[in-house]
């Protein structure tokens, strides 16, 4: 064993350690100095559960229009909500921009959000804001039955989601039971029709041997491939998949008559009570619920603007036309655990 050659391994390791430590400290310092409020203009920390690919252009536009710097931490909405709960009073975020009402609800319930001005709250329908005024919706996403246009025509599709328990749909339907948007739909059905009817509905679905998927997008891709004929998804996934794949033979079908299958959930925003940048935070919420923000959601993300007086992009059925069920989104939270229990009972989880 040539010891002279191998001896210095410890010294080499130590040298490497020192180098990494030095670089680490330098970059940590670097991020610290840029982390504080920039000279002059205000700086706002945003926890965004909304996808970077979708909202980054809008946030950049806000920075330019309002002269406020944003530091955006992207993540999963529910995980960011859990992070805010763990941070507690030591919250780092000024605003929480969430994919769904459920994540906002749990942060609001923990007393971490501050009340928004009535002038902002009144911009949206009471359906799309917290009862206590702690968060406000920014855009809506509707549950639909997406279908393969080679297999089905619009008139083949039922008015109610309950019809999919009929044996004629055996082996033709797909949905994502582990996805939070599907679970929110089940929670909505519990809210309007009670646990027993929801259990019966889920049991009927299972009897029809559905295909289950990881998320909405996988359902739409399976629809495009013709693996299934109908899928229970959010309305905008067709456009997301088309952005990646080009045109696909899939269309949305909207349930009618206040059917639980037509639940409209909201993405929204709330301001942390611990924030020291209340004015900037208020501008942010105003911007998202104002003309520029609402137009962006309508035209660039194919969602529904929730503020009064704006129409979605031309191809969409308008929000007024969707006969959504009478569900208060801030009540959905307490139905989520029962929804998970029911899904587990029928073997979908």
């Amino acid at each position, binding site marked *: 064993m040539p010891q002279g050659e191998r*001896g210095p391994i410890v010294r080499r390791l130590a040298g490497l*350690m020192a180098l990494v430590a030095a670089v*680490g400290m330098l970059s940590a310092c670097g991020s610290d100095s840029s982390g504080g409020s920039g000279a002059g203009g205000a700086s706002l920390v945003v926890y965004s559960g909304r996808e970077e690919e*979708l909202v980054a252009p809008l946030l950049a536009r806000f920075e330019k229009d309002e002269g406020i710097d944003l530091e955006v931490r992207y993540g999963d909405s529910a995980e960011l909500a859990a992070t805010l709960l*763990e941070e*507690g009073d030591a919250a*780092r975020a000024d605003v929480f921009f969430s994919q769904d009402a459920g994540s906002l609800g749990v942060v609001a319930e923990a007393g971490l959000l501050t009340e928004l001005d009535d002038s902002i709250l009144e911009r949206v329908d009471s359906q799309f804001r917290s009862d206590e005024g702690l968060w406000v919706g920014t855009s809506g996403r509707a549950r639909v039955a997406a279908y393969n246009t080679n297999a089905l025509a619009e008139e083949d599709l039922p008015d109610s989601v309950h019809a999919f328990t009929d044996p004629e749909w055996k082996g033709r339907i797909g949905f994502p039971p582990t996805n*939070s948007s599907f679970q929110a739909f089940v929670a909505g059905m519990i809210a309007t029709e009670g646990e027993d009817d929801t259990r019966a509905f889920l049991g009927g679905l299972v009897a029809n041997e559905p295909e289950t*998927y990881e998320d909405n997008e996988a359902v739409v891709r399976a629809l495009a491939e013709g*693996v299934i004929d109908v899928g229970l998804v959010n309305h905008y996934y067709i456009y997301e998949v088309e952005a990646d794949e080009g045109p696909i033979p899939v269309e949305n079908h909207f349930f009618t008559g206040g059917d639980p299958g037509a639940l409209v959930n909201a993405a929204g925003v709330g301001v942390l009570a611990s924030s020291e940048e209340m004015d900037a935070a208020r501008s942010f919420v105003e911007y998202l619920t104002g003309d520029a923000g609402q137009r962006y959601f309508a035209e660039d993300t194919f969602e529904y603007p929730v503020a009064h007086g704006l129409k979605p992009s031309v191809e969409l059925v308008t929000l007024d036309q969707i006969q959504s069920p009478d569900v208060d989104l801030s009540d959905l939270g307490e139905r989520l655990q029962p929804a998970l229990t029911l899904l587990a009972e029928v073997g979908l989880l």
Partner: protein
Amino acid sequence: MSLAGHLAPSRAPVFRGRPARGGLLVAGLAVGALMLLPVAYLVLRAAGASTESWDLILRARTLALAFRSIGLAAAVTASAVAIGVPLAWLTARTDLPSRRLWSVLVALPLVIPSYVGAFALIAALGPGGIVQDLLAKPFGVERLPDISGFVGAWLALTLFTYPYVYLLVASGIKGLDPSHEEAARGLGESAWSTFVRVTLPMLRPSIAAGSLLVALYTLHDFGAVSLMRFQTFTQAIYLQYRGAFDRTPAAILSLFLVALALGVLVMEHKARGRARYYRSGAGSKRPSRVLSLGRWKWPALLFCGAVTAAAFALPVSVIAFWLIRGAVSGDGLNLTWAAAGNSVLVSGAGALVALVAALPVALLAVRFPGRSTTVMERLSYSGYALPGIVVALALVFFTANFSPALYQSLPLVVIAYVVLFLPQAVEPLSASLLQLGPRMEEAARALGVRRTRVFARIVAPLIARGLVSGAALVFLTAMKELPATLLLRPTGFETLATRVWTGATAGLYAHAAGPALLLVAACAVPLYVLARRVEVREVEVKAD
């Protein structure tokens, strides 16, 4: 007693020095305290649980999930051993054609994140996938067998975790003293019987260590099981966070997962046994002979080729397919070089710090075996058994509230990697310490050399292979880490894993493909260099 009985690892009691003390013990306790943070956090969260939460957990379903997790872990571990051990033996001990190239190729699947790998498997083999498209026209294949559920999760996890067994066993084989095998051959045992009755028992610590890493990885994996739609304990934990926004049941379930992992650890401890794996007589090791494969050469090549094709070429081709399609449609390549630099920096730091933290744990456990040191070593596995999100939230809680300067800083990401992956550094270190034996240290100590100097001059050079494998394993695993990186990184700090995630969550595979391919390249290059250096060194030693 049979011949093999004499040659197999001896049952003589292991070396027992004086009880550990001084700096080593303090360092060990400090590491142990760090590793216990997640469990402390979970106990804190579970303590506030209402009877409702407990009712939710204490159901038949929880037991069923536990059995599914254990079943999956057992199946994946068995198949990872079945693939990893023969590969290690073929590349380390036989005249397999271009075996140096194979020794790198078969390790490469380690760099593929299980969520990317599972996704690629579905894209290739799933309904409407690439393979079905290829078969549809010439052969009229309408539908391939379903690869979701248990089969899919088992396949994906086996393909992307067997390298843990392979790397540890290959390193174990290279550290073996060939005299036992030579004695067996000299006494007329066949090559096969020598392998089964002498070599395999000698490799027990490496196989047990690799199996442990695979089993615990399977227990905490979320990406593959979720994509393959196989319900496990870890998936149930994520559902509580993401579906019900409820931390308390998630904490209780996580504690159950830690208990499951402790069960696995007890099994590993039994499998490793109390045998001695180092030379007890006088003399030193010499390089072992290369075995000629003869007519087994072609089946051996086929085996290596098939494993590499399924576990590495397939996912990389799928990623390349998306990349090219994206480039053609004008999406650009999205080669995020800055993120690649960040990944290498933070994972490299994580690997080195993990190595330093692993040393006292491994030294105490191997050289001072006793109840307290064993308990300390076992507890250091709790972070590795937990899903990344749980460890991340534990660190959020402790640092945001008690050490705000550390919160959302790079050093915290490094600490998270240590908490998550420490066992990957401890296992190879322990295995090589077991092979080294205490004789030389004892001799040096008897000659009056200081402990630290004994370590630097004698132990470290002789366990260099374990040090390097440990650092490499942590580095490669940290490169893929997502949940903790997302929550703990400084705002705006992007790694390759976070870039892949950004593209994939928006359904834009073309955007995810560039960083995914860079991730594979950034891991493959160090792995290749590492393997070459080890080989070159060995040739030099042989030439001496």
